């Protein structure tokens, strides 16, 4: 499925120069970019373009990036990568909590951006039939579904990847760095709090009581591991 690699990318950014430059770079890497500059029109553009990935600037006229992110996430699990110039903690966390899979801080290098986009699209390449169990959850890796007592739980691709990574080796404690590398595709240690936010999101979906997690267990001082299956 190499064609997925060269996917459609929706760029939501109000800075025309940057959007154009992003277009040049993405086309150069073989992606098919489409553009929208206004937060209010972003959702319509998303529905129309059906992109494989969304590049989303946080600061937008009209609806802001957070809101757009939430709306897209409400109807699709498509990978969303945020572009942010605001490095303030709150902005980024709110962005991630609204459903973004990854974020990249301006100014970034084109290669870095492309690597992130590839990492988000990469997972579609490996459809291996596999059944995993973690706690009372049954994971069908190829079918991309998670079920508890026959009830399926909707997860975004990233959350699914995270859960699968943990469930494949339930005996192993994963440090945040390892998870960053396996799930996000970071070569070097990056911001480990990316992991924290997504683990919280994952827990809120798969745990019976997110306050007392049984599926994704925190190992204090080290990282996370899958709960007993």
């Amino acid at each position, binding site marked *: 499925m190499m064609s997925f690699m060269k996917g459609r990318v929706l760029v939501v950014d109000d*800075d025309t*120069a*940057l959007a154009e*430059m*992003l277009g*040049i*770079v993405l086309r*150069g890497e073989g992606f098919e970019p489409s553009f929208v500059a206004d937060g209010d029109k972003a959702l319509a553009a998303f529905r129309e373009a059906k992109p494989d990935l969304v590049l989303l600037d946080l*600061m937008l006229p009209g609806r802001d990036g957070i809101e757009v992110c939430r709306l897209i996430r409400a109807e699709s699990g498509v990978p969303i990568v945020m572009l942010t*110039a*605001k*490095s*303030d*903690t709150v902005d*980024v*966390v709110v962005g*991630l909590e609204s459903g973004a899979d990854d*974020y*990249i*801080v*301006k*100014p*970034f*290098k*084109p*290669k*870095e951006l492309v690597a992130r986009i590839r990492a988000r699209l990469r997972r579609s390449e490996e459809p291996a039939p596999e059944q995993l169990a973690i706690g009372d959850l049954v994971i069908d890796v190829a079918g991309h579904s998670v079920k508890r007592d026959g009830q399926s739980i909707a997860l975004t691709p990233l959350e699914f990847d995270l859960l699968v990574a943990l469930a494949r080796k339930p005996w192993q404690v994963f*440090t945040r*760095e390892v998870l960053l590398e396996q799930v996000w595709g*970071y070569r*070097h*240690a*990056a*911001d*480990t*709090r*990316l992991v*924290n*936010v997504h*683990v*919280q999101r994952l827990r809120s979906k798969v745990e019976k009581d997110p306050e007392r997690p049984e599926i994704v267990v925190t190992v*204090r*001082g080290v990282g996370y591991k899958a709960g007993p299956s």
Partner: protein
Amino acid sequence: MTGDSAASAPGRSGARPERPVGRDMPGSRSARLLEHGFLRGGVRNSPVLRLLLRWVRRPLLPVMRLWRRNIQLKVVATTLLMSLGVVLLLGFVVIGQVRNGLLDAKVRASQSQATGGFAVAKQKADEAVGSGSGADGAAPAGGRGSPNVTEWMSELVLSLSSGGQGAFDVVTLPPVNDSGGGRGPRASGFVDPNKSIPENLRERVDSGTGAVQSYSRIMYLSDKESQPAVVIGKQVNDPKGEAYELYYLFPLTQEEKSLSLVKGTLATAGLFVVVLLGAIAWLVVRQVVTPVRMAAGIAERLSAGRLQERMKVTGEDDIARLGEAFNKMAQNLQLKIQQLEDLSRMQRRFVSDVSHELRTPLTTVRMAADVIHDARVDFDPVTARSAELLADQLDRFETLLADLLEISRFDAGAAALEAEPIDLREVVRRVVSGAAPLAERKGTTVRVLGDQQPVVAEADARRVERVLRNLVVNAVEHGEGKDVIVKLAAAGGAVAIAVRDYGVGLKPGEATRVFSRFWRADPARARTTGGTGLGLSIALEDARLHGGWLQAWGEPGGGSQFRLTLPRTADEPLRGSPIPLEPKDSRRNRGELDDAGVPRGGGQKSATVPAQPATEQASAARTSLTPRTATTSPTADPTALPGNGARVVSRPVPGGGAGGARQHDDEPAPRTTADSRGPDRADTAGAAGNLGPVDDAAHTASRGNPDLSHAGAEGADEQQEARRGR
């Protein structure tokens, strides 16, 4: 924080004089104790005395503390004592007056009574002489008259005392030096004549003819108790013309009773007055002290950050004025703080906005430059080179922008610590592997020591990693291809990581200045290497945020060592470091410069290392302090994300472990003292300000085993405490 070396220098130097004592303590001190304390015995028995004193003082300590701290108690106690004094004085004066008055009256009455009595006695004697000569017709012979006189005298005593009816008694005695055959002592009312009349009174009576008086006690022959009395005596002649002593004894029983009544009344009244005065003092002081205490409590709460606290003001008296002034002060304080907060918020927003506004176009430029850079093979050489320069300088620009933003975040107090327990070995491993390509290029081996056991501390992994990356990359860059050693250690409440290189080292005074912003060893050569000049400043701020220390040591040509010390738990103040700041293999410690016989150690440091002229080489190597690799974060803005449930610790207030209260130290270290002293002195000045001896003890001790070293540090600390306590 002590990494702020410049700031802690004064404290350090203040602690110096104590050093020699503190440093080679264990041996020499006990020796001295032995010499003075036990062998010479009495010369200095102060330890025993002190022990005794302490033993006596211990139970009193709470009382003493209460006394020191409670003004109400002080005032009441003082009032009680003083009024007691006044009442006692008054009592004595009054009682004296009353007694004199009572006695005077009694004595006057007694005197007239006695005078009358003496006259009667004389008259009776005369009468007896008259009747006797008439009856016998001849001068009485010695033997014959005796029975008569005896009888006469008994009668006399009886008749004289009959008028008294217990108001007085009469005693007759023969003169002291008189054989007085037959004229024995006589007394009325069972008075013991011999014991009741004092000897000296008798002598005075014998020696003159006038009436003499004295105070005495009447002794009774019966069981009756003795009582005080006025005795008036006179020499009177009996019918035979021979002298005898006649005494009137007036008991003072009545007066005694009156006096004791007065005394009792006065004592009761005095007691009441004293107690009442105490109570009044207590009440009055309470009136003043209560608002003062309230003010103190509110001031404490204010300083704890509850700025809306105010005093209750009633009335218009001085206390009310105090309250008003206090409230006004609090209000102004609140206003000012609010203004500052607003300002800081504005500044933060401004920085954030600027960063946003700068970053978006920079991103475009960056991407465009990269596209051009990637296509440079198609360009002519000049354009291709320009493309390279453009890309390179954009990197630098980005790094600089990121560092500036990071520093401004520290300045605005917006940096938050997200501490959780981490194993520093992991961090070190990551940093070392990250620096591996650079080390390879430089031909340097980075060795890690002390990573056999976990070195766990509550720390912010991202910040610690940034600090270490900076130190390791610096060490590799300036290590001239020699080994770089990263050493980990943990002891007591602290963990430390030291990065040692054997490059050009640091010149005198540079050990503190390396942490200054944009500081470069040699401005002339500043531009040759990249780096923003902010790396170590940020590292210092990161260490400070943890409540830790970042310190540097170096000797010209001998390499340098940067040491990061962090508390094991985030809030704990540091007391020492498990790794000595000056490495064991420094030139002085290796003994190269010890030929003068100067003992090693902090105290004599400056003398042992000669100041070396700044060579070309030395200045070249330290030009850049922040290689770009050190700060280029590939992914995220460094402070972007919070932890999950990690503790957020506010910016540590300097002072816990170190005297350095200065937040920023941008000026190239105004530390003339350190500079003039020579390199090592300057370098260790980076250590904990007032904990100088501690650090030093750790220093000496840890030449053996790091655990021991900490024990040494604590010991020194205690001793220092004790010294201070005295």
